[in-house]
């Protein structure tokens, strides 16, 4: 009966946390109302957030929302924007491009919105970009890894920045795929690699970049297959893959596909490591069948190992949010701080009106931003709006849990 009582207990605990958090929230608002001596005579400015706060990705989305909330509260305590109080407005996009675009449109039309943190999904970002381009609203994504967003469809050969107001604080797939390949081929010595993708653009692109680098390093791609994302039965594709005797399988998809796939491969006697990108890096991957030896690369370094990340973790923990910061909270925190810093500078010379000129000035401030002490270390942007911080980390399933193997700067070679 242990499990039953644990479940009941955790249920009670969760209730307690929720109640506690809402209580805290209420207190906080009052405290902010008093503003501890800050001058807020000029009104309230809004930092917009768009993230998937319900659905399969809710753990990530809620972490993003809470982390921005944390940055905003810290800024209010420190009177970071003179004369103004900051407020966060978080909209749930459910990982749905239409919902994300609609929320972004509302933010763009609202002159009190000084900047947008989000979205998480690259697909949502593609829908948002054209909607807010004319309003010049600055957008910083904590999680988009699709290179097209910042360098256009010809990102590999003729990069061209499509939207000046778009920035991101994470590295891109065209770096992550090769980074993954270098680990598998150079560090693990894999010579025969199979590729399975789910047909989505992100998975396809990453797999193509992975294949290119793996082949450059002397490995062979023995087979490449596409599966249907809604399938749960991978026995057929794995039987086919097994016949090519691969030493590893690169999966261009997310944990809900890769986890069961790892288990079914083992069941078929194909006991080789599964490797993939940040879509696999989730505890659910292991719960759904990921096995020891499976590999995932992800953006940034483990937050606990970054010197300046500890302050973020401590501050986050103190707020008693009902959800953890997730894989992307620290990036959202860094992104929010860029926006807050920008609006602080813009409002020194003139009151905030939300005019296109002022929003353009915001874009300039964000472009010029550079700090070494972000939650993920270096925060700054290159001429395409991509992060200057190109750290990736290899994680490996070890004794049933993700463990970081190595972190490194991934430069395109």
């Amino acid at each position: 009966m242990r499990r039953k009582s644990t479940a009941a207990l955790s249920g009670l605990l969760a209730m307690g946390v929720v109640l506690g958090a809402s209580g805290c929230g209420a207190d906080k608002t009052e405290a902010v109302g008093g503003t501890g001596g800050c001058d807020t005579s000029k009104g309230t400015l809004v930092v917009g957030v768009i993230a998937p706060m319900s659905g399969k990705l809710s753990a990530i989305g809620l972490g993003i929302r809470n982390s921005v909330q944390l940055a905003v509260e810290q800024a209010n305590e420190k009177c970071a924007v003179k004369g103004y109080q900051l407020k966060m407005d978080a909209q749930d996009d459910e990982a749905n491009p239409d919902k994300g675009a609609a929320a972004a449109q509302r933010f763009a039309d609202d002159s009190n919105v000084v900047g947008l943190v989000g979205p998480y999904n690259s697909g949502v970002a593609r829908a948002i970009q054209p909607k807010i381009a004319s309003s010049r609203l600055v957008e910083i994504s904590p999680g988009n890894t699709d290179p097209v967003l910042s360098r256009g469809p010809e990102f590999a050969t003729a990069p061209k920045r499509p939207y000046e107001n778009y920035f991101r604080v994470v590295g891109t797939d065209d770096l992550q795929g090769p980074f993954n390949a270098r680990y598998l081929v150079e560090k693990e010595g894999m010579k025969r690699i199979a590729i399975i993708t789910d047909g989505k653009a992100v998975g396809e692109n990453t797999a193509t970049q992975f294949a290119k680098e793996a082949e450059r390093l002397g490995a062979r791609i023995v087979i490449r297959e596409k599966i249907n994302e809604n399938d749960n039965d991978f026995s057929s594709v794995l039987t086919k893959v097994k016949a090519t005797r691969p030493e590893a399988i690169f999966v261009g998809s997310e944990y809900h596909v890769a986890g069961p796939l790892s288990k079914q491969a083992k069941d078929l006697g194909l006991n080789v490591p599964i490797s993939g990108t940040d879509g696999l890096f989730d505890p659910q991957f292991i719960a759904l069948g990921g096995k020891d030896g499976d590999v995932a690369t992800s953006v940034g370094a483990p937050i606990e190992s970054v010197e300046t990340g500890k302050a973020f973790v401590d501050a986050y923990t103190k707020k008693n949010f009902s959800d953890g910061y997730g894989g992307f909270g620290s990036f959202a925190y860094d992104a929010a701080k860029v926006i807050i810093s920008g609006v602080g500078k813009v409002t020194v010379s003139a009151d905030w009106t939300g005019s296109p000129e002022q929003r353009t000035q915001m874009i300039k401030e964000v472009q010029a931003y550079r700090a070494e002490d972000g939650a993920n270390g270096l925060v700054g942007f290159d001429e395409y709006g991509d992060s200057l911080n190109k750290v990736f980390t290899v994680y490996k399933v070890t004794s049933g849990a993700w463990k970081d193997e190595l972190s490194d700067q991934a430069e395109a070679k």
Partner: protein
Amino acid sequence: MAVLAQQIVNGLVLGALIGLIALGYTMVYGIIQLINFAHGEVFMVGAFGAHFLARYVLPEDVRWYVALPAMCLAAVAVSIGVAVAMERLAYRPLIGAHRLAPLITALGVSILLQEVVRVFYPGATAPLAFPRMFVEGHLAIGPVTILWTGVLALAVAPLLAAALHIYVERSRLGRAMRATAQDPDTARLMGISPNRVTLATFVIGAGLAGVGAVLYGIHYTQIDTAIGFQNGIFAFTAAVLGGIGSIRGAMLGAFCIGLVKSLAGQYVWGGVQYDYVWVFVLLILVLMFRPQGFLGRPEGMRA
């Protein structure tokens, strides 16, 4: 050869699991000519019912031979409960309405059930790991491997289909079902209550879907709220392919779909990404030359 044999085994296991759902489609259609698109959802809620029992009620160290029957009972109970409620609240009020009304209602019920589970079941917004309540490991016949859960599915599904076939052929209720299917008005004159027969059909179909859900869960060790829709489409296709209204046909159709899906992925041009295509190409071809499916009776023979 080894690869071919393995692919055949893969296809048969998938077919067995789809077949248990297809039986529900074919029976309901046989009796009241309703394509119950929400039947896939009956399967899905069964899986969550079993998951609930194993995760929150059963003790952690329970043996599989205790847990598995208990989970089957839970799944069957939940599936039947939902199916009965569905029949009573959604379909019975529409008796006599235009044929499209129950069809659209079925789609609505399907979405409703998916969303209710997604929103209210703890953790159902993401795929859930299903407890591994059966013998671990696999049976190896030469180079061909088959999970013990797959062996179980291959044994149970045809057995249940055969039992159902015999029941419908031999029992009193079965005779009432066949009578209602042939001519509901005359059946009523003979003292058969069509409402009771319809309800019994829903109950039997849901029971099979519940058993299928547990077999599915322990085999793939993962469930989510979309499994009903996905497998429901395959099961419906299997029922049509085999001849909707025919019990043996539904099972046959399901095995065909499983085999085509796994063999086409291996051998046909384009690889695995086109395996769904070949399933539906087969369906179209069969319907072109034999619109009533493999074992179905032509529509015209109906009273």
